[in-house]
């Protein structure tokens, strides 16, 4: 299937001083998209708009090719969602919570839920408020997967969790995506997680999408350049987030091929840039 599991077109929403403007994102079926950005860049707002938890001012959101407001019930039946800080009813047990959720989904599968709890080592007789942060996230994940969703939406699932739990999550996501009809959209500011498994990366900064492309293309094209101050002349307009230290400069470039065609790079160091580098230099651009 070549269709898109998630499509966001010219989405806007303003919120007091904060403004999410003209967001465009496309995620084809069968892939994982990482949604990267600093805190407050608009990740959670975008995700809540997809979930129709807040209203959009303008634009369009299609999930499974259908408008997310018009077909909200139908769509939500096939979405698994894990919020930033998973909250259920504190005083109730894991088991009760699952039994409650089960009533609302058409495809709930108990064996998936019990299987995941076992795998995560979660005691289902425990109350939600007795679970640690990692356990809560895993419970939320188990709940999100048990109704056989096609699209998994995770909002900062790994923040504040130890590397072991994070690795478990990545494992689960890779398993989930074995079925090529499915898709994952997850936001994180821990870019190493996204760098590992994401097929697509969307970078948001200050309410605007900076780039949204295949991860490999991004990592192959965006590079760091370093060099002596003398070399700076004539380069400046192509450098992003220039940082001057005492002995050298460092900056981001958007497209190494175009850059090499235009400039002589023999006395510069061109280095691979990871998503963190890209984020950092883009943030510097504004200051």
């Amino acid at each position: 299937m070549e269709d898109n599991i998630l499509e966001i077109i010219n989405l806007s929403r303003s919120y007091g001083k904060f403004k999410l403007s003209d967001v465009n994102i496309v995620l084809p079926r069968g892939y994982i998209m990482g949604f990267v950005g600093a805190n407050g860049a608009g990740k959670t707002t975008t995700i809540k708009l997809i979930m129709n938890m807040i209203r959009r001012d303008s634009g369009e959101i299609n999930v499974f090719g259908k408008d997310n407001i018009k077909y909200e019930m139908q769509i939500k039946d096939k979405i698994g969602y894990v919020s930033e800080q998973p909250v259920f009813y504190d005083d109730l047990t894991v088991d009760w919570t699952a039994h409650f959720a089960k009533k609302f989904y058409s495809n709930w599968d108990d064996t998936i839920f019990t299987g995941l709890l076992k795998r995560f080592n979660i005691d289902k007789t425990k109350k939600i408020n007795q679970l640690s942060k990692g356990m809560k996230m895993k419970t939320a994940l188990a709940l999100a997967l048990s109704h056989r969703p096609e699209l998994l939406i995770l909002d900062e699932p790994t923040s504040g969790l130890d590397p072991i739990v994070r690795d478990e999550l990545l494992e689960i996501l890779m398993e989930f995506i074995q079925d090529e009809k499915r898709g994952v959209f997850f936001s994180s500011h821990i870019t190493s997680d996204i760098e590992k498994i994401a097929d697509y990366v969307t970078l948001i900064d200050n309410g605007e999408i900076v780039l949204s492309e295949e991860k490999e293309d991004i990592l192959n094209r965006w590079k760091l350049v370093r060099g002596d101050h003398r070399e700076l002349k004539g380069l400046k307009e192509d450098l992003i987030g220039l940082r001057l230290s005492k002995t050298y400069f460092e900056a981001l470039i958007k497209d190494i091929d175009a850059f090499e065609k235009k400039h002589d790079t023999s006395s510069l160091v061109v280095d691979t840039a990871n998503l963190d580098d890209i984020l950092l230099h883009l943030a510097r651009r504004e200051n």
Partner: protein
Amino acid sequence: MFIPISNSDPRPLYEQISEGIKNKILKGELLPGDALPSIRQLAQDLKISVITTKRAYFELEQQKLIITRPGKGSFIANYDVNEMASLNLLEIEHQIKGVVAYAKRTGVLRKDLEDIFYKILKEEY
């Protein structure tokens, strides 16, 4: 099937994978008709993105080293032995080019390079 990939390798991941598989074919570890893991399985196994493995397989298909049958998976193709040999030579050429480039960068003289090459040939081959 172990495919060596490394973060410190400057080559893109998909290239590391396609070359890794190609090497196994060249060495005869993988024979025509042998099944490869599915694109998604391999991605899960290596904990890398699906697009990366997809691209790696695509490269191999372009080189006619593997064929993918929809719904069945990917297999090592019935490659031409002669073509394989020339591919092998191409690979060697590629590697020597790397060495020469390194020598050039570090200012090693052509004469010294030749000496080293013949010395190694004498000892090892």
